[in-house]
């Protein structure tokens, strides 16, 4: 971390002692400890105090606080869809240009990250309200290399190869996929990730963006096709561990465990970068990268769409303005604020000035590189859609789909939910 001192010295010149910042977010336990390390450097340098409140119920609590006129200074949103709604209601403070400039200059594919945080304010003017911080990578397929080796399977480089491999595993008497969609009130999100990944691989990014904003209706043939492609993998009892209709009742955190059984219940599991936390203990830590590894969820060779990457992440917003809060936002765009958490766990960043050496493991570094090299980056669509869709109709639609409704019907129902909120 050679640039550590450089990027801090700017903040050491400021004296914010006596100022307190309230920061609410969804990170708890291990993540909270990492964030506090990041904030500790800021407190040390400036003398300001940051009071972080982490909760699993952050999204509900912060709305209660907001309605009661007691908003925190900063809030970290895992679903940017809400940020757009709050910006339009005038509940958010536009970030300073220095934050936007830093994102444009320092984030790889900076424009797309700036766009992600830019929304129309109460008077219709577009401002940057959200700073992407702590992102995750979704286009990953997890597998046990030795199982592949034993069976003589190669890592598929294209979607065509992945489909061929899926069939071959079935022919060899195995089960290719483990999929689990149960996640309490959020049941179904695993399915939405699949569909978004497929959408990015079958349509250009511009179509994806229009699909997210509903300029293209949800039941457009291109969207229905994405659902059906997911169905090709998920709705075939030979392709998934368990049966297609049981997917909605398998806890998403338990579903990868089939990879590690003897005999293996499945060979592949498509899930985001955070999933190793749910692996059996023997497959956590150093074992990730050797005993269990991942490959990029491949793109179609036949479609000339490059190698798109799907990801999610948290948007930092300012709900209550103060001098120290603006400085903290600046600090969070500096490389050091990323490097400190990179040295911990569960953190990826598109910040190109942050030193890749800071990542605590090769696996994280490999994932970080995928981010930096991504030409087409699609942010999780369900997280960007309004809550009623992205955290409602889309999720339940996936459950309905695995329970036997047709793709057409599901898409039409989700479009009806869109129409209802317009």
């Amino acid at each position, binding site marked *: 971390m050679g640039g550590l001192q450089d990027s801090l010295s700017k903040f050491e010149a400021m004296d914010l002692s006596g100022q307190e910042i309230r920061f609410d977010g969804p990170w708890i*336990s291990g993540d909270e400890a990492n964030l506090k390390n990041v904030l500790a450097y800021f407190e040390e340098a400036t003398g300001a105090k940051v009071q972080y409140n982490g909760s699993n119920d952050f999204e509900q609590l912060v709305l*209660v606080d907001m309605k*009661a*006129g007691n908003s925190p200074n900063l809030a970290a949103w895992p679903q940017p869809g809400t940020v757009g709604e709050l910006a339009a209601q005038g509940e958010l403070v536009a970030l300073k240009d220095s934050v936007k400039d830093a994102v444009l200059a320092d984030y790889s594919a900076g424009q797309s990250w700036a766009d992600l945080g830019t929304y129309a304010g109460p008077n219709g003017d577009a401002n940057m309200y959200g700073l992407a911080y702590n992102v995750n990578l979704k286009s990953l397929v997890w597998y046990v290399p030795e199982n592949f080796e*034993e069976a003589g399977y190669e890592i598929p480089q294209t979607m065509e190869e992945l489909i061929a491999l899926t069939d071959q595993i079935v022919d060899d008497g195995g089960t290719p996929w483990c999929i689990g969609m149960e*996640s309490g009130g959020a049941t179904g999100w695993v399915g939405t990730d699949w569909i978004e990944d497929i959408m990015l691989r079958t349509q250009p990014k511009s179509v994806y963006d229009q699909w997210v904003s509903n300029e293209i209706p949800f039941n457009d043939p291109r969207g229905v096709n994405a659902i059906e492609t997911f169905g090709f993998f998920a709705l075939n009892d030979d392709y998934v561990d368990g049966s297609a209709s049981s997917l909605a009742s398998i806890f998403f*955190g338990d579903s990868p465990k089939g990879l590690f059984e003897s005999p293996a219940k499945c060979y592949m599991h498509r899930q985001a970068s955070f999933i190793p936390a749910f692996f*059996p*203990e023997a497959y956590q830590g150093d074992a990730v990268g050797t005993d269990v590894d991942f490959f990029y969820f491949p793109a179609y060779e036949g479609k000339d769409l490059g190698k798109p990457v799907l990801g999610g992440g948290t948007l930092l917003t300012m709900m209550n303005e103060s001098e120290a809060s603006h400085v903290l936002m600046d600090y969070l765009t500096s490389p050091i604020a990323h490097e400190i958490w990179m040295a911990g766990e569960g953190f990826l960043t598109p910040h190109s000035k942050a030193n890749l050496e800071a990542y605590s493991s090769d696996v994280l570094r490999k994932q970080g590189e995928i981010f930096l090299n991504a030409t087409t980056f699609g942010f999780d669509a369900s997280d960007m859609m309004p809550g009623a869709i992205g955290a409602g109709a889309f999720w339940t639609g996936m459950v309905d789909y695995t329970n036997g409704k047709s793709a057409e019907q599901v898409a039409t129902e989700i479009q009806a939910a869109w129409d209802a909120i317009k």
Partner: protein
Amino acid sequence: MSKPAERPLARIAASAGLLALVILWIVPTLGLLISSVRDKDALAESGWWTALSASEQTVFERTASPDQQIETADGWVIQGQLEIAATGYTITAFGGSQRTPNEGAPGSTVTLRNGTTLSIDAQGNYRFVSPDEPFTGSRGKRMFFSYEKPASFTLDNYKEVLTEGRLGQAFINTLTVTIPATVIPVLMAAFAAYAFSWMPFKGRNWLFAGVIGLLVVPLQTSLVPLLRLYSDVGNALGFEAKGYAGVWMAHTGFGLPLAIYLMRNYMKSLPKDLIECARVDGASHFHVFTKIVLPLSVPALASFTIFQFLWVWNDLLVALVFLGQAEDQIVLTAQLRALLGTRGSNWEVLTSGAFITIILPLVVFFSLQRFFVRGLVAGSVK
């Protein structure tokens, strides 16, 4: 008139019913207890009811690394003993591939890819032979085998909660919330209940009906307006909207209607003569209250204290809304939830955490329970 012949039957039926209820209530608790002493991976694999008996486990271990191979007449050989077997377990079957982890009986030899052979005996002594070429790579090869794993339990979950769960501070925070939030409403309700039962004043019954009416106000609907009030007053007077005082007042407000109702009914049932005599002898209301009514109302006070204590102790919602989530204010219930991790990956610690947090409520309940039924029934049955 009771018929002696029927009595034993009725008693047996009553006892059987009671027993069934007790079992119904105990089974989930038992399941939680057993889960709390199971290993994380076992928890994810099977239900707690399977934990009490031995189970067949199929796992793998790696051979010694290839740089320890020796060259013999048979070819290149890696040998040694499985760690599991070295700790006393017997191998029941083995295999060299994850697809056929149980193909060989102990002592037999199985042939794998590239002509290599593996044999493992019941004591776990393995011999991996490659007749044609030396083993390569830096890691040992996987050997799959099955063994009978007896029921096993661990205290790791408790250790984790106690060392990393930061429950200590949360415990103190919860006590800081619970004790005043129990004492204040009990005190206020006792005064109010006395007034409602023994101090005649105009509109007393209407006022009492109003208090009873408040019982039906759902707590959830008042959270935002109340916090808004705190926040407005806090802004005007310069204090934080979220804090212990706010949570005490909230719990007091939410608990008072039921408290007044219960205690008023109890106090009303005290002998009228007793209180009138005292009044005639010149005792003031305050005297009557402290010297006569309060000592006689201990069962009602105790039963409401249990109610309120347990409710506040177990409360998550009110504390989430009216307190911050940082270390100095987070309550046990919220801290327990936080143990789950941001994405809910650590749920095994919830079971042990739950057992640790119910200790104090159990102590309170058992020390006050003899008053409980008396206090609840008193006043309602004449």
